[in-house]
């Protein structure tokens, strides 16, 4: 561990430990190396490599198109191709679900590092979220191909797209950081968490349009921060009315979720080595 040439003071853990932004900044290169390692290892260990980033959402799209679109009749609410509609949502959702799942399990997976070296523990779950971006970029490139195939030209709204990617990373960071710390102390949360992510998909307009939610409930619904991200992302890619109110509510909710996650994480992070 490296620290600048000044006094470092080690004291008992306090329960109100603030977020040490300056220290995180000093360790930014280590974050880079963690992300770099995750990506390298992932692509070295798979035969199909980046193709998995497409196969996963495409397979899910095919499945959902048959069961929810055809048999469940959801495709009637969608103008244009239901498959494209679902793929757009799933490309972002897959990124979210993978990022948050990897982040949640990341600390336990790095227990050896935690027991042997000091660095800001927050880097571990955060790195998992960044390393998911490569897969997302691949899935998104495939989305561009689909747009050409389906003759959907991009609208000017596509400029808002980075906001929704950043927003999704914020939600993933919030939930990932929170659950990673919970899983260190209580391993049961691993199973709770898998279930939460599955339910979360259905509480988010990935497979259906927000029109099926009654208008008066929509702002409440957008307290699920992924609602605004998916709805906004879809409007950015496919055009159509822009759900500004949902996006704003979800943006606030995602920042609050991140704050709660960081608050809990910083309160317990110094204990990790003792309980992991």
């Amino acid at each position: 561990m490296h620290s600048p040439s000044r006094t470092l003071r080690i004291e008992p853990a306090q329960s109100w430990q603030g977020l040490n932004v300056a220290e995180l900044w000093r360790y930014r290169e280590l974050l880079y190396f963690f992300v770099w390692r995750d990506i390298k290892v992932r692509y070295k260990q798979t035969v199909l490599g980046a193709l998995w980033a497409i196969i996963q959402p495409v397979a899910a799209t095919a499945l959902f198109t048959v069961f929810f679109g055809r048999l469940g009749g959801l495709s009637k609410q969608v103008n244009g191709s239901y498959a494209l509609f679902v793929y757009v949502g799933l490309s972002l959702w897959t990124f979210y679900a993978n990022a948050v799942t990897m982040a949640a399990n990341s600390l336990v997976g790095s227990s050896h590092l935690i027991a042997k070296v000091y660095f800001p523990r927050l880097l571990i779950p955060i790195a998992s979220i960044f390393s998911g971006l490569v897969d997302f970029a691949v899935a998104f490139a495939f989305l561009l191909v689909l747009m050409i195939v389906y003759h959907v030209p991009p609208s000017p709204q596509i400029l808002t797209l980075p906001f929704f990617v950043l927003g999704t990373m914020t939600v993933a960071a919030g939930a990932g950081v929170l659950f990673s710390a919970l899983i260190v102390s209580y391993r049961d949360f691993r199973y709770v968490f898998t279930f939460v992510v599955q339910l979360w998909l259905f509480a988010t307009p990935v497979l259906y349009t927000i029109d099926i939610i009654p208008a008066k409930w929509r702002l409440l619904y957008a307290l699920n921060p992924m609602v605004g991200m998916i709805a906004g992302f879809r409007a950015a890619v496919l055009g159509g009315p822009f759900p500004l109110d949902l996006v704003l509510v979800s943006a606030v909710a995602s920042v609050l979720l991140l704050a709660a996650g960081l608050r809990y994480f910083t309160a317990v992070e110094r204990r990790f080595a003792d309980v992991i």
Partner: protein
Amino acid sequence: MSSNAITIAGISKRYTIGLAARKMNFREAIVGLATAPWKRMRHLAGHGSTATDFWALRDVSFDVRVGDVVGIIGANGAGKSTLLKILSRITPPTGGFIELDGRVSSLLEVGTGFHPELTGRENIFLNGAILGMLRSEIRRKFDAIVSFAGLEQFIDTPVKHYSSGMYVRLAFSVAAHLEPEILIIDEVLSVGDLHFRNRCLGRMRDMRDEGRTVLFVSHDLTSVRQLCNRAVMLISGRVAADGTPDEVTRRYEQMNRDPGTASGGMAERVNPPPHYHLSRVELRNASGAVTREFDAGDTMEIHLWASSRAPENSFTAEFRLLNDDDEPISFGSANPIRDTYYLAEHQHFVCRLGPLPLTEGAYTFNFTVRVWNQERWDFWERAIGFDIHRCDLFKTGHGVTNVHDGDFIIQQEWLVGD
């Protein structure tokens, strides 16, 4: 400003037994929450739950001046590793504070974070970053690291294809290129391969000569005497001696010869039987001298002393031999002669062992004594350790170490076939 590199002031560390040993699950946490107020009331009323608390360190204070090389010695369980973990910021102290003045590197092992799928080159960058080097710094030192390890040819091979020797060489080479003002280092990392141990010590000597401050946690009294200009001895989490390496190591040796204080007391036992326990253990060589240093092929005598408040029949003893990764590699038991053991107030048992088929490295014994068919027994974990200094059973002149070649050598006979 003082010229102290490290100020350690009143450091204490409490572990709650049970919490550290076992993962709490959600249900237990909920139960814990529900019963916490009750426990707290009991605690305030003076029925403290201190029975489940274990103080690994208690009010440890000492200063390290810039340029000092301080050796920390003490028996297993004396608190050395806990102190190291607190200094490395891996775990927080329960009380007190530490001030470190200068750029710190701490090494609890070499090769932390190495990934088997990544190449040597990639692991140098990853491990360097984990140890706190900047990317520019790693790039600058890269060639030196590779040639120091002697791995130019294999640098783009995934380390999963490395031999354990190559792996350790690369890992050590990265660590050796750190340039901290304060180095905190665990000697555990230099146990095993004698050649590797010498290189570690050589590198630490360089660090000392360059005027860096080194805090060195060690079992090896010889290297403490050679390297350090000061030594601190811990016993049961407290500073028991602080002075010149010669004085302190001599006291340590005397204490370990002293029957009453043979390493580890009842404080380290979990749920011991109420009326008898192991009180002391000694290892002796073939000529009867008490020692912890053996060569492969030597015979060893284990001397165990147990005491009992009431005489017991059918008393038996067992040992487990652990290698330096704490893995059990062998077992011994007095069971076949259990009916002949009779435990009186003070009883002395001897186990003759050997010739030792062990390779060079550090080993530890766990002991258990019990009365046959009783549910509780006295389990003395990591009771005593010893080193195999030389293993040249093949008469090649090169030692056989437990880093490359396993922990023991099976008796063998080689013939030429038809």
